[in-house]
């Protein structure tokens, strides 16, 4: 049995259902991210786990114990909010001590634990400051310390980095991940930022319109997206329409040209239209090997992005974008130039669902 077991979770607000039949099993010590656009239901699921929303249907078990009927205070779940939610009337130390005082720990124990937490978040000198005297990044670290000071079974992070500027986000996400690994605390992290999810998570749950579209490791979700939504939401992707020629052999036509995938196309027949996906970094200029697909095209646009050059090539009716490392010694193709592009067959993915 998993540490967190979510089964058939559903949430409706009046006639509108925002979470549909959601299932998830999280192992002890795992870091799982809920990734999706605004309104996809990720925060609602998190709030149901925390106890701030009541599920319309389904069950939530933590360490084998059903918690759906318990109030938030009885769930032993720590939560960090996007808006920090530090108590403005309390100092940093008092904020961290709040949960310990509620749990009626001894003064000595509270003092020791607060000191440990301040060291852990690298703010040992700021215990006497008030929240308004701290920067956003410092406030969020205090919020994190406050949540983990009481040693909860599960840590829930609701877009904790969204309100911070880009540089602090990167450093803080590394700190959060390091802390999580050090403490071994089971964590669920909500974000709409794919980079955060990819860099921090053991597994990612990609959500769309209240449904889990795909659950997998960052590697799986990025490299083998199962649906058109996952493919388009996680990373940049070329999405094209192709027609199946021979499903067993994995052969298709793309803008009238023959291409092939490395695997048979499951559940499709000859003549079916399918959506195929190809990462820009998987496409190369020039002829490929015998195991590659090669297509001719005309360069439509060349965009210089610093370390990367993004080239858009028109095939016939469809276009394909490729990313190439910027190498000053290699000349870039010019707009309107006829070129050939190639990609490995394993990189051409046929997505689930209709084209």
């Amino acid at each position, binding site marked *: 049995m998993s540490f967190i077991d979510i089964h058939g979770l559903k949430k409706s607000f009046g006639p509108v259902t925002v979470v549909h039949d959601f299932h998830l099993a999280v192992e002890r010590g795992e870091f799982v991210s809920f990734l999706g656009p605004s309104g996809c239901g990720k925060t609602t699921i998190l709030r149901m786990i925390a106890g701030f929303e009541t599920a319309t249907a389904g069950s939530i078990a933590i360490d084998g114990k059903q918690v759906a009927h318990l109030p938030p205070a009885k769930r032993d779940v720590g939560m960090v909010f996007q808006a920090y939610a530090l*108590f403005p009337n309390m100092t940093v130390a008092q904020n961290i001590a709040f949960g310990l005082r509620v749990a009626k720990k001894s003064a000595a124990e509270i003092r020791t634990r607060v000191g440990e937490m301040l060291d852990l978040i690298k703010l040992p000198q700021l215990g006497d400051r008030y929240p308004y005297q701290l920067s956003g990044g410092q406030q969020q670290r205090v919020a994190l310390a406050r949540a983990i000071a009481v040693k909860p079974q599960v840590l829930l992070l609701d877009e904790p980095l969204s309100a911070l500027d880009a540089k602090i986000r990167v450093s803080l996400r590394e700190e959060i991940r390091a802390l999580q690994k050090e403490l071994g605390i089971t964590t669920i992290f909500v974000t709409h930022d794919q980079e955060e999810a990819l860099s921090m998570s053991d597994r990612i749950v990609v959500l769309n319109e209240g449904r889990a579209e795909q659950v997998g490791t960052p590697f799986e979700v990025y490299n083998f997206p199962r649906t058109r939504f996952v493919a388009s939401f996680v990373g940049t992707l070329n999405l094209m329409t192709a027609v199946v020629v021979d499903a067993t052999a994995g052969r298709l036509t793309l803008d009238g040209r023959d291409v092939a995938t490395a695997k048979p196309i499951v559940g499709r027949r000859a003549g079916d239209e399918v959506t195929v996906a190809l990462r820009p970094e998987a496409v190369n200029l020039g002829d490929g090997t015998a195991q590659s697909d090669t297509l001719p095209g005309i360069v439509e646009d060349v965009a210089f992005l610093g370390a990367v050059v993004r080239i858009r090539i028109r095939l016939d009716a469809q276009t394909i974008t490729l990313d190439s490392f910027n190498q000053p010694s290699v000349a870039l193709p010019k707009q309107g130039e006829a070129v050939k592009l190639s990609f490995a067959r394993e990189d051409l993915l046929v997505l689930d669902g209709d084209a």
Partner: protein
Amino acid sequence: MKKSTFGPWLAMILGAAYFLIPLIGTLEFSMRMKRGVYSFEAYKVVLGDPRFQESFSYSVMLALVTIAIGVLLVVPTAYWVQLRLPKLRPVVEFVTLLPLVIPAIVIVFGYLRMYNSQSWLPLTDTRRGTDLLLAFGYVTLALPYMYRSVDTGLRAIDVRTLTEAAESLGAGWATILFRVIFPNIRSAILSGAFLTFAIVIGEFTFAALLDRPAFGPYLQLVGANRAYEPAALAIIAFVVTWACMGLIQVFGAARGTGSKS
């Protein structure tokens, strides 16, 4: 081109004169008790009057009781409305405004009808009961001011997130209210409290009709029978009210908030 400031200054001077001239006149008159010289004789007489001390102490005590009841009634109500029943806000706001449109005399007659010695809850049978009834009446009178102050304070903080943060740390409702919500709307509660204090200190109708020895009826009694003392009392009442307003400003500005980027 520089705009002329003559108009605004004129308006301000006229406005100030409208309020200050009667006050200066009252102050000047209150100091003329001794013939031929200005003195604080009237103030000495008033402050030395045992009935002044008794009625003022009584009203201060009643104001404190009113504030305590008002805070305990209004803060949880406004908090709950904001957190769980936001759709009820217009209804609650309407109810809290009723004391402004229903005259005090109507309210007190209603109370006398409801709580007289023949009623199911004969509060007017005893002095303590009547004092309690008077305090409840003052809570009603001060409700529009107390509710608005507290509601404004609650809107200034993220009540929902703070509540959820406290809940996730294991806190129950009493802990959340007294350790998280109350301290963070302290200045709003104090504003409401000082307004309540100012209302109670000068209130006449409730105290007179319930026959209680409050400061308002004393003011009326002295005003009807003496010459200089009523002017001195009026100035004292103004000073008390202004002190309350000043304290609202002091506590309102005391807590600077904001975040470093």
